[in-house]
């Protein structure tokens, strides 16, 4: 039995078609045209207890809509879901006490009060025992390095600090399932890595099941072993992160340093990305790497060589492009 289960989840929105121009707006007052927009077109997956899974996809792919269905904010058009053995959109208190959703930044904190006051309120809303509350709060503020900021009005905090407080608020009641929508969006690298570390530590310590969306591959690489790739509302990949590169990364980067200056005909082996005196980087098709290396070593004296996987970022954008093309063709 998975912690999060989605079976053929579909969500179709009906949106008003707005006419452009004044005449169009006037017409819209009397006669409205609707268009069906398929946000999620039947996704299925199972997430086991304690897993930390990334949900990847371009904007508008259906990630957020899926998270909203799993957190019970919206009803699916069809399909089923179970989170913690509950149907999320029934919104039973027993379910709501055991999960958290972090989406955007102004959800849980009182703007004009110190975050500490909001945390106290959470203690009551979730009926968290005192000792447990103090322990968790201490643990989280230490992990995120914000011990001194809980007494300052939230509106005076920086974006990164607010996000950290938001995360603390989401974790205070020790949820068993944590859904995160872009937890590091708009943050600088330091804040980003702090949040990553906190999530990682917290996950290791409490074994919480996490499903997160992020545009930062850094987050994904740091946190998740498994990824779900979604595009145009359908799941196009579900498996280990490393597999994404293997499956969609068609090339490898061969970095060479020759004893003398690099030969001029390297582009016959692949795409020359960089060439500078004795060094050269070539993108070579995965299957041809061994052959290419053998050929080069035979011809020239090579001082150093390394073969690298392409950056995840690049591979992911290729996955999106491919799915895009397939969608357009269909």
């Amino acid at each position, binding site marked *: 039995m998975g912690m999060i289960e989605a079976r053929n989840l579909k969500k179709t*929105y*009906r949106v008003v078609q707005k006419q452009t121009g004044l005449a169009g707006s006037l017409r819209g007052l009397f006669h409205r045209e609707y268009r069906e927009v398929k946000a999620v077109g039947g996704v299925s*997956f*199972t*997430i*086991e207890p*304690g*897993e930390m*899974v990334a949900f990847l996809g371009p904007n508008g792919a259906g990630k957020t*809509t899926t998270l*909203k269905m799993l*957190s*019970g*904010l*919206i*009803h699916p058009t069809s399909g089923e879901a179970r989170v913690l053995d509950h149907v999320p*959109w029934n*919104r039973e*208190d*027993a379910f*709501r*006490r*055991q*999960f*958290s*959703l972090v*989406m*955007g930044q*102004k*959800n*849980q904190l*009182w703007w*004009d*009060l110190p975050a500490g*006051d*909001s945390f*106290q*309120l959470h*203690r*009551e*809303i*979730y*009926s*968290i*025992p005192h000792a*447990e509350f103090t322990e968790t709060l201490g643990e989280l503020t230490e992990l995120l390095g914000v011990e001194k900021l809980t007494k300052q*009005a939230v509106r005076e905090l920086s974006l990164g600090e607010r996000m950290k407080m938001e995360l603390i608020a989401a974790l205070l009641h*020790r*949820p*068993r399932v944590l859904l995160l929508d872009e937890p590091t969006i708009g943050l600088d690298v330091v804040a980003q890595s702090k949040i990553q570390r906190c999530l990682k530590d917290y996950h*290791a*310590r*409490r*074994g*919480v099941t996490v499903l997160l969306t992020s545009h930062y591959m850094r987050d994904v690489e740091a946190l998740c*072993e*498994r990824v779900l790739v979604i595009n145009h509302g359908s799941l196009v990949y*579900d*498996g*280990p992160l490393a597999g994404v590169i293997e499956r969609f990364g068609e090339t490898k980067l061969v970095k060479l340093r020759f004893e003398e200056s690099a030969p001029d005909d390297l582009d016959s082996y692949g795409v020359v990305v960089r060439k500078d005196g004795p060094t050269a980087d070539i993108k070579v098709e995965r299957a041809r790497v061994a052959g290419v290396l053998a050929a080069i070593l035979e011809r020239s004296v090579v001082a150093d060589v390394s073969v690298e996987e392409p950056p995840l970022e690049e591979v992911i954008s290729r996955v999106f492009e491919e799915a895009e093309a397939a969608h357009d063709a269909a």
Partner: protein
Amino acid sequence: MTPPDTIAEPALEPWSVRAPDATSPLAAGWIAIRKYLAIFQTSLKERMTYRGDFLLGTILRFLPMVTTILLWRAIYAGSGQTSLAGFRYREMIAYLLLTNISRMFSSMPGLAGGVAREVREGTVKRYMIQPMDMIGYLISYRIAHKITYIIMSFIPYALLFIVCRGFFDGFPDAGTLAAFAASLGIAFAVGFFFEATVAMVGFWFLEVTSLLYIVMTLNFFISGHMLPLDLLPQPWSGLLKLLPFQYMAYFPAVVFLGKVKGAELAWGLAGGVAWSLFFIVLSRVLYRRGLRRYSAFGG
């Protein structure tokens, strides 16, 4: 589709098994009360951060009173009568002063607009995600606001009533005062749940400013805030006294002035309780439907 097999073994117990799933109805009730008390306390703290705004707001509120007093003096002088619809000049001014007390309890600035904004901006999510009820939350918040407002404006109001004491015929007896207190409680309940009902419209229409403007303008008149309902010809005054709006201004004022007594008073109070219950149920039904709609369309 198999998950990676290297799931970190949780070092500590992942969550504690908690009691809140109602060991007994009494315990569950206590937990719920504590929850909304906490919201109340937090709201109190939040309100305290805006002290300056209060004082200015309260003082500005009294300015129109001066013109009202002058206007009515002119009306009585012009009519050549000492009493209009049973109100003598002094009583009329006392009535208008008292409706300000009623409105202190029944007006709900920002309630409906706030709900519409929360729906529009999506922050309404928190009531769906967290184990709490939106109407419960709003009422805790509102009571805290009302209490801070009443405490903060106590001195200016006391001053006003001391200055205007000449318009009153002494202090009412204990029974009348108790009925007045009850009528103010009803003013709050009807005011809150009526506006909460209107607020739920925000789930259907994202912008409710114009609607609220109409409701408020109409309310100013039909609640008796502007003039006593008795001044209107029949059947209008009788009709307006059947509607819930009178409880937001007219009713507490006439109770204080001793114009409703005995059986009439008892029926009046009962009617107020009935209207409160009606709007409690209606706001709840609309809230449920609103959430259903939000779940289907928005998010």
